[in-house]
Each structure stands twice: as structure tokens, then as C-alpha cells.
């Protein structure tokens, strides 16, 4: 297996995630796109771990998975609060600070 096939798969997934973050307006869907990007990074870390025969990449991937779980917890709490205050989960409505 070539190292690059994993790296390019991860790059493609990351770019799809970027598209999702920019184009989605529902807060939950934006968080899903962020998960997509974090997953792409994990594939990179594991591919390099296999390429270099190092455990470090796998340890970092585990840390990224942990932090992604924490991020989803806090992120969904924020989306819930937005929904409660603005009666809509759409991020377009969050504009109180707009000049």
C-alpha cells in the first residue's frame, strides 16, 4: 500500500468537511462536518504511524478521539442553548453581535 492513498483519502474527507462547515446552516450538521474533519486527521495519524512503525501516531489518534467526544458534548450543549434562546437551531440567526 502506498502512503499517499491514505493521505489523499484523508485530504478529500477533510475538504468535504470544510464544505459542510461553510455551507450548512443547521448547528447539528455543522458539528457533524467538524467530526468529518477530525476523522480525516485521525486517518492521517494512523497512516503515518504505520509508515514509521511508531506508536506515537496511534496514541495521538486516541487523544483526538477523546477530544472530539468532549467537543461534541460541549458543542451540542451550545446548539441546544441557541435553540432554546432563538427557537431555531440555525446558525444564521445568531447575529446579536453583528455591527
Amino acid at each position, binding site marked *: 500500500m502506498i502512503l499517499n492513498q491514505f493521505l489523499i483519502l484523508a485530504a478529500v474527507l477533510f475538504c468535504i468537511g470544510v464544505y459542510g462547515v461553510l455551507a450548512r446552516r443547521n448547528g447539528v450538521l455543522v458539528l457533524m462536518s467538524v467530526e468529518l474533519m477530525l476523522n480525516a486527521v485521525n486517518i492521517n495519524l494512523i497512516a503515518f504511524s504505520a509508515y514509521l512503525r511508531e506508536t506515537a501516531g496511534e*496514541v495521538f489518534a486516541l487523544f483526538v478521539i477523546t477530544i472530539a467526544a468532549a467537543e461534541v458534548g460541549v458543542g451540542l450543549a451550545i446548539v*441546544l442553548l441557541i435553540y432554546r434562546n432563538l427557537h431555531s437551531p440555525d446558525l444564521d440567526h445568531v447575529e446579536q453581535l453583528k455591527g
Partner: protein
Amino acid sequence: MIVQNIFFWVLALAMVLGAIGVVRSQNVVHAALYLVVVMAGAAAQYILLAAEFVAWVQVIIYIGAVIILFLFGIMLTRAPMGGDTKLDNDQRWPAAVVSVFLAGVLGALLIDAFGKKEIVISGAKGEQLLQVGKAGHLADSIFTAYVVPFEVVSILLLAALVGAVVIARRD
């Protein structure tokens, strides 16, 4: 050698189609289910790279916990199920241009930097790869070299837990 490549391309195709489903689906629950396809594909890729422990952690945490959390979020925000409300904003085309441009830059950079470098999976080096992915080996690494980051992450998880409760609590 060839078998792994066939598996890789099948999984990669499923993952890319699933990812496009996540960002294009007009039904929120379908988007969450497409995310399951991507997560499961990623776990299979980890097994292909002999990282079995990370693969099962991925299955347990992502498919088991994070997706359930997303479904709860969808339920609690009463997301539109029928597809009558627009889930996308009006900057779809700029977003597509940005992501295609980013993919081009990253792809060119990766091909230039790593070219045809190969992950050797046969012979003695393959045995070494299998050793690296073992859970025991990973545990040795976490609890010796990375024990401080490990403890910091546990504090971070506690902080995130308390923070989520404080943010979402009704006063």
C-alpha cells in the same frame, strides 16, 4: 498486497460517498446515518493499517457514543425531518469553490512530498507493523511516555462534562 488495495479502494469509495451524503443530505437523520458509514469505514481503514485497538475505540466512541449524542441533539432541537426547511445557507457555491481549491492544494502538496513512498506490510517489516498496533504495546506507550498528556486529557474531559452541564442547564 493487492487484496489490501482492493479493500482500501472499496472502503474509500464508500467513505467519500458517505461524506458527501453527510454534507448534502436534506434530512438531518439521514446525515447522521451517513456519518456512521464514514466512521465505520475509518475503523476498517485502521484495521487495514494494523491499528486494531484504535479501530475498536473508534467503533465504541464514535459509532456508539457520538452518533447517539448527535441523534439526541437532533431530537432536542426538533430538527425538520420532512425536508421542507432548507438546511443549507446561500453560500453553497463559494463553499464548493473553497473546498475544491483546498483539495487541489493539499493533493498537489501530498503528491509532491510523499510521491510513491510505500507502507511495507510483508515480511519482517509487516511483523513489526503488527507489533506496533497491539493493544499492550499501545498501553505501554500511553502509560510511560505519554502519561502526562493522558492525565491532562482526563482533566479536559471532566471540564467538558461540567461545562456541558452548566451550559445546557435551565436556570
